[in-house]
């Protein structure tokens, strides 16, 4: 083991250069994006969500369409909603840097539900 240690002092370290470079694999499951133009409001995504993160907000006035909100605090990134959507209106992105500073309960919720 001494030989291994002495040899490793002269080899390159195995550390990834994370804060300076980003290596994300292509099929990484990041934040889910909703595309309003393709959505037909069937609410299949809301039914398939195991934690209740995906919610349909009904329109306030007549003639408007509602919105689909995904709360990233409740989301477990299982991508069931992406698989369930018949029109591909939900799309997975590679965004994983989702940390936020907590201010108050309401402000945090609004921040988490932003598309």
């Amino acid at each position, binding site marked *: 083991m*001494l030989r291994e*240690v002495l040899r490793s002092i002269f080899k390159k*370290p195995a550390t990834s250069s994370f804060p300076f470079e980003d290596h994300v694999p292509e099929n990484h499951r990041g934040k889910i994006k909703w595309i309003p133009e393709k959505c037909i409001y069937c609410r299949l995504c809301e039914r398939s969500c195991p934690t209740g993160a995906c919610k349909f907000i009904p329109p306030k006035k007549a003639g408007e369409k509602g919105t689909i909100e995904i709360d990233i605090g409740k989301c477990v990134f299982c991508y069931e909603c992406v698989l369930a959507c018949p029109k591909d209106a939900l799309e997975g992105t590679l965004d994983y840097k989702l940390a936020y500073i907590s201010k108050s309960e309401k402000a945090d919720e609004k921040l988490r539900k932003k598309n």
Partner: protein
Amino acid sequence: MNYLNLAFVGIAAFLFVWIERKILASSQYRVGPPILQPVYDLLKLLEKETIRNFFASPMLPFVPFVGLSALLVVAAGLPFAGIPASIDIVTTIFLLLLVSVAYPIAGFLSFSPYGYISARRAAIQILSYELPLTLSIISAAIFHQTLSFNNLSGFSFYLLPAMAVFYVCALAAMHKKPFDVPNAVEELVAGSETEFSGIPLAGFKLIEWIEGVILAELFFLLFIGIPDAITHIVSVTVIFSSFAIVEAVTPRLRIDHVTDFFIKYMVPLSIAGVVIACCVRF
């Protein structure tokens, strides 16, 4: 009062701990911390508050400074680059014992089960390694026929058993692997230092760092003894790096294995070292 040696020990304490962390990191295929990291650690600890524990003794925050002052007295007394020593071998042995005793005292005084277990194990370790350490220093003193650090005559093959014993006992005195038990007792709850924070914790970290330099310097002075300043600095660095490489390679021994090892192997070897030194000189 050797200001040069104090300055050397002060600067070397921060540099050597960086060298140790870099060697450990590169043996694990990692990049280690930047070079000023020990300085940042110390300055950050000085900013934190000292939490007063209601159940522990009120003398608790002062315990590490007793050990630290003993170390600084030794550091100010050792010779360096032509300035003669103002401390002798016997006083050094006693002051080093005082430094080691700071860990069990801190563990017993803090009202915490982790501190208590760590203090008992540290006390057992002190009982195991003090006898061989003292005997190896005494055999060096008999060989060089002097009790002061001035004019020590240098390397000799008759001193090899004493060198080996001193090296292993120095690892035990600094709580480095393989004799790591008091320091990382449940490997996650910090042993004797559990109830410390802020400036007393900085005191403990300084004891750890400076003790490494002092023991490497003692090894150099007693067994290699070339009085030149550059050789002094380079040799002390090489000796400390070898401590770090041994630390990277060995696992931690259990406390009963530690006592076993010292009593079965180190005590006879150190007695053999004394006998050889006596036979050579008388």
